[in-house]
């Protein structure tokens, strides 16, 4: 359940990152208005909460919040890894 | 620069030693609130005194950081310290209550 919840959170947070101006600036990407289905994906993590509640109510909140924390780190690391080249170029450019 | 502007700018800055003083004041006030809460709580429960004491401890641990940050953060016109001092007085008076 922790893995499933983390995956759902990763999807949700990735969609959030794609529509966050600050994250797009880091990646030097143009902001594009996302489609409605993509925007709805932001709330997919709530399905995780429902599944957690269904499986074991006493641990649901802990698992859901814990997987959010882990997913945040995963998305941040993934984003940094994906756009490391952009950051390096910017740093070199800033230094010269 | 006019003297008014200069004094206004001086007022906008604070030395670290003054901040240490403020921290001490905020700490003492917040600690007083937390201490009085734990001290008085055992007398506030009509039935099980242990339960009342536990409840007092729960509130005290939550109240200490809130009171501390309020007293230190809202220093302008001493709003924060005054509010926390009032809460401390109330909590102190409440230690006299025995249900």
């Amino acid at each position, binding site marked *: *359940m*922790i893995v499933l919840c983390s995956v759902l959170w990763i999807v949700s*947070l990735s969609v*959030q*990152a794609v529509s*966050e*101006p*600050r*994250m797009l600036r*880091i990646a030097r990407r143009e902001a594009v208005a996302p489609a409605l289905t993509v925007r709805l994906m932001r709330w997919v993590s709530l399905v995780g909460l429902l599944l957690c509640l269904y499986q074991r109510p*006493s*641990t649901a909140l*802990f*698992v859901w*919040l*814990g997987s959010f*924390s*882990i997913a*945040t*780190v995963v*998305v*941040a*690391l993934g*984003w*940094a890894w994906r756009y*490391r080249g952009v*950051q390096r170029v*910017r*740093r070199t450019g800033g230094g010269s | 620069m006019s003297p008014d502007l200069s004094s206004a700018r001086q*007022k*906008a*800055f*604070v*030395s*670290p030693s003054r*901040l240490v003083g403020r*921290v001490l004041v905020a700490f003492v006030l917040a600690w007083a609130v937390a*201490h009085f809460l*734990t*001290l008085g*709580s*055992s007398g506030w429960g009509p039935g*099980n005194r242990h*339960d009342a*004491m*536990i*409840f007092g*401890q*729960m509130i*005290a*641990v939550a109240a*200490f*950081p*809130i009171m*501390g*940050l309020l007293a*230190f*953060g*809202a*220093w302008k016109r001493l709003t924060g310290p005054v509010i926390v001092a009032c809460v401390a007085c109330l909590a102190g008076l409440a230690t006299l209550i025995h249900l």
Partner: protein
Amino acid sequence: MIQDRLRTRMGWLHAWSGFVFGLLLVCIFASGTIAVFDTELTRWLQPEVPPSATALTDEALEETLPTIRKLLERDEKPFITLPSERDPILRVQYHDGHEFLNIPFDPGTGQELAARATVGGTFFYDLHYSLRNGDTGIIFVTFSGLMLLIVLGSGIIIHLKELIPDLLVLRPFSARLRAWLDVHVLASVPFLPFAFMMAYTGTFLHTRSILPPVSYLASINAAITPVAVRAESPALQKEKTVVPALPPLSPLLHDAEKVVRAGQVGFILFLPKNILISRTDASGPARTREHVDFSYDGHFIRHVLLTTPLTRTQQVMEGIHYVRWGGAGMRWLYFISGLATTIMIGSGLVLFLMKRRRLSGGRVIFRLAEGLTVSVLVGFPLACSGFFWGNRLLSGGSEQRTQEEVTVFFLIWAASAVWGMGGCLMKWRVQVWRSELGLLAVLSALLGPLDLLTRSGGTVFHTPTVFAAVDLIALCVAAVAFQIARRLA
């Protein structure tokens, strides 16, 4: 001079209180994170004990009675922990004033298993809540927990506007200060619920030590008086304990199981007057410690379960702090979150030094602060690694073995602190960081091979989970330490 605005004021408070208490909080959080797996670590630290065992039998339970009797004669309060999902071995345990020492038994036959004496994973538990210093340590830890709440609160206030936009930002390849700040924010913001929960529940557990429900004068008086009374009556101390005949345990266990349900008994505690059969902490988020009491002649005395709403709340708060419920997945969540919180505090310490290096880098007090930071950020994991090495390399026959393990830990930590502070005072900053990180990388990387060499029947491709997990985590620590040492200017 500092601008007299809310954000700057809070920034100042966050930085200074964070640094002063952070030095201690890093150790508290790191040891707490390790202690999440204390039971599993005890298994790693006793490689002679088989990783799996047969189910518990009534005969095996009775076989532990002579050991219980011996411990009762020594005025200990022994208890038997029954086999569980986390640990399939039957163990007789007692508290030596610091840790819970254990004697393992085969749950099928009741035969005592020849295993090395070790302080086990509970060493980290004791270090976490009392710094291995009893009541004084508890006061320090509890006070630090209270201060952590202030540090967290001030951190939120200074970062309130960027809390959501910065949530996913990490730029490890940008300027060093920016990269560390990103690490600090990323390790804090998503884990704030965890950090708050642990700081609050942890402080609440021992509130009495710093906020007693009586006036401070009265509590100081109470702390002094019993000592005086004891000193006046030495005859009382010399009285030899008379241990009553121990009843067969299995009928008592089955009777207790009728009350707390089968499979829900965690341990059997032997007190001077009666025997307590207690519910396992793994049964749910509330740490009820529900118990059924029997007299030494085998008669039922009472069933104790506190159910008032406030007691239940207290039990839940204890339960979510100790996390002995929820299974392995939940414990891994706690472990990762604890690690992140440790990184949050550690990166905060590094940031504090980085921001002040240009202006105050030459001052003695700054160099001393940097030495202290090296001692806790690198010295503490180094001492932990040394502790595991000590456990495997110290000879098994020594009676003082448990104490020797602890001595190894503190000796390595002290050496690291002396080298850290001395080196920083001598302006060998980079060499100090590099040497300690390098040593940590080597010790941690070689822990796996050491485990394989010193564990009977150990093979690379068939390693029981507890051993594999510890070895792999040590390898990860080595990789991180190596990478940081490599990137140091």
